[in-house]
């Protein structure tokens, strides 16, 4: 089956196509490497409980912290440049479902437990989403 598809592709495509695809492919691989090496701006994580900041940690640091909110302890984990809520006492666990954040300006909120996590850094207004 796949051989048949390849045969058909050979019929359809010209040499120019293959050259174009090869050039683009190399460009993609190269650009992935280039963007890997871009400096990781010194971002930090700010954790607040009822409006008061209780922690400020560099995002590059791998650690786990325990924060006491009004319902109980929320465990927050920072690893591989991302922050997320590992365990929460709140009933619906929306904060855990908010996933892992890493870009500055992104937030995780746990309303029942009054916990607010925010990534801060030099690029204050980074993109949330792009749609077309």
């Amino acid at each position, binding site marked *: 089956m796949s051989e048949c598809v390849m045969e058909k*592709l050979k019929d*359809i*495509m*010209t040499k*120019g*196509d293959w050259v*174009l*695809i090869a050039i*683009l*492919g190399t*460009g*993609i691989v190269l*650009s*992935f490497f280039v*963007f890997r090496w*871009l400096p990781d701006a010194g971002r930090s994580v700010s954790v607040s409980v009822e409006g008061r900041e209780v922690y400020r940690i560099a995002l590059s640091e791998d650690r786990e912290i325990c924060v006491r909110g009004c319902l109980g302890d929320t465990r927050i984990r920072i690893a591989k440049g991302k922050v997320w809520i590992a365990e929460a006492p709140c009933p619906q666990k929306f904060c855990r479902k908010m996933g892992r954040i890493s870009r500055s300006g992104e937030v995780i909120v746990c309303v029942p437990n009054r916990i607010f996590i925010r990534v801060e850094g030099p*690029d204050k*207004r*980074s*993109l949330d*989403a*792009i*749609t*077309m």
Partner: protein
Amino acid sequence: MSLRYVTIALLVAIGSILFAVENVVQTPFPWIRLGLANIVTLLALQWWGLKEALLILVLRVLLGSFLTGKFLHPAFVLSLSGGIVATLAMHVALVYKKRIFSLVGVSIVGALAKNIAQLLVAYFLYVKQSMIITLLPLFLFSTLVTGIAVGILAHLLNQRIAPK
């Protein structure tokens, strides 16, 4: 001549529907789209030429934006500017030294031009931030995959329904 107008109208209709349907289909990343509507532009370029292709493009983007309720929305501006640049680039790729590229290659050129144009427009009009450039590898990759897929589809369609 009137057959041509009817065919153009049909292509506009097909293009708008493809555009609207694609808005509904979920992709893992919201900014990556298949670009199925590009098939219509490819066929128009192949059958007639730049003038007809641009006409179809503008009409289908307008109609498509009415269908999805995004007239004059940023998405509309991006679609229109990206589409026009893509059409021009594909015209050049198709006409310049005939047969260097098949429809597959032309489609890749179009997708590439469209993505770059949209990134630039998005950068200058909406999100003046160099961070947007870091999306480039992802864009290029999606360009390659969707460009090939759309090109093959257009080729198969061209074989079957090309008007005399």
